[in-house]
């Protein structure tokens, strides 16, 4: 044991003396999760839709529509700006707004006459989400306008006459209009004020419904597990690659000339790598716990972390057991880990993947690590909640470690050439 401890200490000391590589790998998940949190987790959540309005009508109906757009409930999601006629399109094409709503000339007349009229929404082609929001909201608004035009029909007839007539409308006309409108409104009130049909959204089993107005820390904690798991695999890669670095430097050969077996040398390297991964995991977990500001089940965390470290060690052992040179190994590891990362939810949330890719993601250890830590941080899961991840990672790690140690041992014994 003293021998192994000495080997682990030696490697950790070497990494501590050249910390830039591992430090950068560790910093990456924090930087990346922080970036995404800054982007998506600002206090206002998704940015407001910049909506331009070209009002070619300037009648009562269009003014009412504009007023509705400027209502407090709408301004939470829309930045509405009225622009001059024919100026809106140029602004869109300069990428200064997400969408342009054109209210045609004769809009009010058409509404009052209960004749068909079409509003036009022009989308900014360089944006996808915000124009989509604008389109959906405008579509609902158009339905409401359409319904309103029909509901208030009788009242609108009187109103049109009053507007088009000469001079001021008489009190009787006004009273008749008011009565008609009130009568329609009253008839519709039980259906419309408030809307008689509501919609409840139930998230998929096991998923929390999306929170409105995500905060920085919520988004940060959503992204951190996946990218941190990837970073741990990269740290493992750095640690295990060292066996080939030592082969190149001649110090592996020197160790083989010393009174210890190949297995001890390989075990020492694997232990050092595991220790490095554990240190990295502790740092990342500490930051995650600080951001979460709520307790995490210690037993579940330890079990999951141990299984992850085993998986990291096993994976790296196989990669460098197969690789013939350091360069080959780092290339193989980088590519495989990148694929695992994309499929496993490190850079893109798992639920954003198409269904077919989500099936494939279950084949990656990163996905299981990500799911496990997300359960811990977001759902407050205990050991039973993370058990599937623990078992899969441990199984993966143990089997890969056996194979990897055999490959490395064979390489270490064979790879010393006179």
């Amino acid at each position, binding site marked *: 044991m003293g021998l192994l401890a000495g080997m682990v200490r030696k490697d950790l000391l070497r990494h501590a003396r050249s910390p830039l590589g591992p430090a950068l790998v560790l910093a990456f998940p924090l930087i990346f999760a922080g970036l995404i949190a800054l982007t998506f987790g600002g206090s206002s959540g998704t940015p407001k839709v910049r909506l331009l309005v070209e009002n070619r009508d300037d009648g009562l109906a269009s003014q009412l529509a504009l007023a509705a757009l400027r209502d407090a409930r709408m301004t939470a999601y829309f930045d509405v700006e009225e622009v001059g006629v024919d100026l809106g399109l140029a602004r869109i094409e300069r990428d200064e707004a997400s969408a342009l709503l054109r209210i045609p000339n004769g809009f009010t007349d058409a509404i009052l006459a209960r004749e068909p009229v079409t509003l036009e929404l022009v989308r900014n082609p360089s944006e996808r*989400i*915000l124009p989509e929001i604008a389109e959906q909201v405008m579509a609902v608004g158009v339905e409401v306008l359409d319904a309103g035009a029909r509901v208030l029909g009788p009242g609108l007839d009187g109103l049109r006459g009053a507007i088009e007539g000469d001079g001021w409308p008489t009190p009787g006309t006004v009273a008749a209009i008011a009565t008609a409108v009130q009568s329609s409104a009253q008839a519709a009130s039980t259906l419309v004020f408030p809307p008689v049909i509501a919609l409840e959204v139930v998230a998929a089993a096991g998923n929390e419904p999306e929170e409105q107005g995500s905060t920085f820390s919520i988004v940060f904690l959503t992204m951190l597990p996946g990218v941190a798991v990837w970073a741990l695999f990269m740290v493992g890669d750095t640690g295990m690659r060292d066996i080939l670095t030592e082969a190149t430097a001649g110090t592996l050969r020197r160790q083989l000339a010393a009174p210890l077996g190949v297995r001890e040398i390989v075990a020492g390297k694997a232990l050092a790598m595991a220790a490095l991964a554990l240190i990295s995991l502790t740092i990342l977990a500490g930051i995650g716990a600080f951001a979460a500001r709520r307790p995490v089940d210690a037993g579940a965390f330890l079990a999951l972390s141990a299984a992850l470290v085993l998986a990291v060690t096993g994976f790296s052992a196989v990669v460098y057991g197969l690789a013939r040179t350091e360069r080959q190994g780092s290339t193989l590891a980088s590519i495989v880990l990148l694929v695992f990362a994309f499929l496993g939810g490190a850079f893109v949330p798992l639920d954003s993947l198409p269904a077919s890719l989500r099936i494939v993601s279950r084949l990656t250890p990163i996905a299981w690590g990500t799911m496990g830590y997300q359960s811990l941080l977001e759902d407050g899961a205990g050991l039973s909640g993370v058990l599937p991840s623990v078992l899969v990672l441990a199984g993966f790690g143990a089997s890969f470690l056996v194979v990897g140690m055999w490959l490395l041992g064979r390489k270490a014994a064979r790879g010393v050439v006179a």
Partner: protein
Amino acid sequence: MSNVLWLAWNDVRLTARDKPAFLWLVALPIAMMWFFGAIGGGSERPLRLALDVLDEDGGWVARALVDEVRDDTIDLQEPAVAQAPGGAERRRLVVPAGFTAGVLAGERQVLRVEHVASGTTESNLAVQAHVVRAIARTIGRLATAKIEGGASAERYRDVAARPALVRLAVATAGRGTPVPRGREQSVPGMLTMTVLMMTLIYGAVFLTIEKQSGMLRRQSLVPMGRGRVILAKLIGRLILAALQIGVLVAAGRLLFGVSWGRSPAGLALLLLSYAIAVAGLATLLGAVVRNPAQASAVGWIVGMVLAALGGCWWPSEVMPAWMRAAAHVLPTAWAMDGFHGLITFGQGLPDVLVPAAALLGFGGAFSILAARLLRVS
């Protein structure tokens, strides 16, 4: 100058001889284009949204609502056997028992949309929006029917048959094509990111290897001078970036059917200026780091951060305004601006002059710094 080009070409040749080079410079970027495109919905319009309906009521208002939900964009089915909640494979709309009577009595009724784990966030939101529109339409028609003499199934059908008074027509600015999705969006972004990352990594790694091995020092001893050696390093990285760009532009066109806009001159100017910026940054990175491992690690991280902030990973529209503005201290944001102008708005050469000038400015600044900081031994 021929010596400079000779030395620069040597760097390119050494890179090409590196066996994984094809993987990193070509195969991986294409794979990432495909991947991000697949997440974004592929290159075609999305498939119809899947939605099952469980009508526990069966009354005429419920049936009317279901008919309002049904259209060409929804794959609506009413399975004979109700699935257990949580066990369903398709999204489900549940109309509760007593819905029709409750609505007609003015009592608030709650529809339920049950999402499934296989649904993406975007499709879930699209279904919700669709159902909300159907609700608005149903309420409007019910109210109209009520005002015209009472809400009944026959009167509702009569109201529903009338053409809409107010419609919404949707158009797209620029070239007038539908909003880019899938690979049309991912290809420019991934090109920007992977050219940056691979030029950073390869360019800096080889430079540090030359520093460590003494090769750079040896190169400085030939009758060229240090300045020309550095110029050769810059040009070498520029050629590498330009070659990769050429391959990926062709791949984007031939494999993914992406149109690169209507201005070849504008595209060429934008890509060349981006290559210059990237080459300068790669040389600067190689100048400041000590060994290949550091070059690789820093290259990865810098590449990913610049790509994320520059709008290569997600549409810049979702970034807060301050972030969008701040991102323009990075070359990637300017490159993406140029791509948007060319590809989505169909702009021409004059419109990419500003992004190109910014990129050339970056290239110049990086190159000057690299020249100052690069030590040949």
